[in-house]
């Protein structure tokens, strides 16, 4: 499968999957109980070496590496997968749908900022504080900053509320003339601070002012408190001012990091609640009609970098947005209409029958028809309440015309039902995980298996929920796709994955039954592997198809 995609542009990056090749990757498949202990030991070794490999792939933005589980749980996947590739003579390449991204923790973000500043200080040859402010004002775009600065340093500084000769920010005192314009205290003993604009205020007022702004979420955009003054409060001055206010200073540093991520298009926060990681991804917005930048945070959340919605491969962002809008507007109403109404065959008014006989008179166009066969009423003669004319031509035609206008609705509901079904199933998978854990315990007790030997069950549940998510969105893609041969190929892929997923689901739901544990384990592992390969096929194929413009979308 992978050879086909060697010419794909992302495959340039070939350093990606360097996963342990330790033997035993098919460990689960044909192991007898006698070898179980040895295999378990080996799999632990595999696990250790693979979690390193996984860590590496993760930093390179390899989607499958973080399939949504903890690192050392996906050993079967990677072992199998890799050996399979190797056996097929394929080089390990990056998956077609994977995008490059990097996960940063708050310290990492601080280091990144610091590195950029360190790099720019010698280029601009101004103080570190000024460089930092300039970078922030230019939203960290180094090139335009350097260009502007070289062309006209004075203007560039002024534009950012800085001056060419910034007075060293330090706290002074001993000036008899000094009066703080905020609290009106004066005298030589007052400590005060002034920025390059030389508006001076006493340090207490300045600190209160800055703290207030920081509590509102401000960081580098805090300006001198003088009315209309645009001079920015640099980081050094802020740290000097707030030296005594530890909490505020911490908040200030947090705000700085926050604004760094918010100011850069290539960074975003992980949307998971309480997650403190940020993700960097260089896929430009313009490419997001054909590339779905799914990224995996270290916290386990898989989401789209472009629209922050949970992982929605294989549907691109704009279709997802359209779909969600449509569902919000339509789905409930459409369902109700389908269940409770028919359309007048003549004027297409939507009619709800709320009682009475089958002889209907349309209130809009006064057309008489039979509710049962939808044909004209006059052909029914005296056979009230007993329509047996279903196959007569006229009623057939009438039904045809109704069905045409209903086809759109039906079509939407077809996709919506399946979309919704998978969505519900993803939720159920969470419950399934709980029963699975119970099953795993039972297996450990009754069959004296080790913990590691029953992990295949929870792995399978993980595969299930990932595949169901993909299936769910694949129906959105299919809904907007114009009908042609390419769509049929897509739908074949989709139905293969769907069928395999359902089979795996059945196996996982009731694992302890007529088969022996070895058989069950083999079946589930085999099926998971197969499902995963179908999943990969679908994703590779759609991501390539989107890039090639293989499908037409009607929206």
């Amino acid at each position, binding site marked *: 499968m992978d050879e086909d995609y060697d010419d794909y542009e992302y495959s340039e990056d070939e350093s990606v999957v360097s996963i342990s090749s330790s033997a035993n990757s098919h460990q689960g498949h044909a192991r007898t109980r006698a070898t179980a202990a040895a295999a378990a030991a080996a799999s632990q070794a595999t696990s250790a070496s693979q979690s390193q490999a996984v860590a590496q792939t993760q930093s390179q933005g390899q989607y499958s590496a973080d399939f949504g589980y903890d690192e050392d749980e996906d050993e079967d996947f990677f072992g199998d997968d890799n050996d399979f590739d190797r056996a097929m003579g394929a080089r390990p390449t990056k998956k077609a749908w994977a995008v490059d991204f990097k996960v940063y923790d708050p310290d990492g973000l601080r280091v990144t900022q610091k590195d950029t500043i360190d790099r720019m200080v010698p280029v601009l040859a101004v103080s570190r504080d000024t460089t930092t402010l300039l970078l922030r004002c230019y939203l960290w775009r180094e090139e335009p900053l350097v260009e502007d600065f070289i062309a006209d340093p004075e203007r560039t500084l002024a534009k950012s509320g800085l001056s060419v000769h910034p007075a060293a920010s330090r706290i002074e005192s001993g000036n008899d003339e000094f009066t703080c*314009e*905020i609290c009106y205290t004066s005298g030589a003993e007052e400590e005060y601070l002034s920025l390059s604009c030389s*508006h001076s*205020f006493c340090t207490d007022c300045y600190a209160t*002012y800055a703290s207030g702004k920081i509590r509102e979420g401000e960081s580098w955009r805090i300006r001198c408190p003088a*009315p209309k003054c645009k001079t920015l409060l640099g980081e050094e001055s802020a740290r000097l001012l707030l030296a005594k206010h530890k909490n505020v200073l911490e908040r200030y540093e947090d705000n700085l990091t926050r604004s760094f991520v918010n100011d850069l298009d290539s960074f975003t926060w992980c949307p998971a609640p309480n997650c403190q990681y940020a993700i960097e991804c260089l896929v430009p917005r313009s490419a997001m009609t054909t590339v779905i930048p799914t990224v995996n945070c270290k916290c386990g959340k898989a989401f789209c970098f472009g629209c922050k919605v949970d992982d929605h491969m294989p549907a691109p962002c704009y279709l997802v947005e359209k779909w969600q809008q449509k569902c919000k507007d339509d789905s409930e109403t459409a369902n109700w209409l389908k269940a409770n109404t028919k359309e007048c065959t003549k004027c297409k008014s939507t009619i709800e029958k709320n009682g009475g006989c089958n002889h209907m008179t349309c209130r809009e166009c006064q057309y008489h028809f039979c509710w049962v066969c939808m044909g004209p009423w006059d052909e029914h003669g005296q056979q009230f309440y007993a329509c047996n004319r279903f196959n007569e031509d006229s009623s057939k035609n009438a039904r045809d015309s109704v069905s045409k206008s209903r086809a759109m609705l039906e079509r939407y509901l077809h996709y919506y039902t399946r979309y919704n079904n998978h969505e519900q199933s993803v939720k159920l998978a969470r419950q399934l995980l709980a029963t699975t854990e119970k099953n795993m315990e039972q297996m450990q007790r009754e069959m004296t298996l080790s913990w590691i030997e029953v992990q295949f069950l929870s792995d399978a549940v993980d595969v299930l929920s990932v595949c169901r998510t993909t299936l769910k969105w694949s129906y959105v893609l299919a809904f907007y796709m114009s009908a042609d041969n390419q769509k049929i190929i897509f739908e074949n892929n989709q139905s293969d994955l769907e069928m395999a997923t359902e089979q795996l689901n059945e196996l996982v739901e009731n694992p302890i039954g007529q088969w022996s544990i070895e058989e069950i384990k083999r079946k589930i592992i085999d099926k998971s592997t197969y499902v995963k390969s179908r999943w990969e096929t679908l994703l590779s194929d759609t991501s390539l198809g989107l890039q090639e413009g293989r499908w037409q979308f009607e929206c």
Partner: protein
Amino acid sequence: MSMVSKRILKEVDRLRQDPVPGIVAEPIEDNIRYFSVRMNGPNDSPYADGCFTLELYLPDEYPMLPPKVRFLTKMYHPNIDKLGRICLDILKDKWSPALQIRTVLLSIQALLSAPNPDDPLANDVAEQWKTDEKKAIETAVKWTALYAERVVRNDVAKRE
């Protein structure tokens, strides 16, 4: 707190000793943070003949937060709504702790001379101001006569 009170006391002091022409601002007896304000309409405006009352309140965080000011007299002005609330940048995001009651009141007086219908608070008034300025100004003059106290001015032209 004492520092802030000191500022307020000093401001009150200065307002008494060096009052702003056409504006009287005095704290009411038992609350140093609550001011009763009377403001003459600026000469070159439809409000020229009126004397308007306002209330001004200094929140606890003053001067880090702006004072709260509103007109008590009914106003026909695109930036003042029917509750007397005022749309003025320095009372919102452009507030600076170095501004004072005095500067705030002067800005409000300036707003009466220069209504800004492009940044409206009272949408219907702003609409009128933009489509038919003459009629809008007439209405403002009429409202001033109806609702505001008459100004007793010292200049000769007004007395005649």
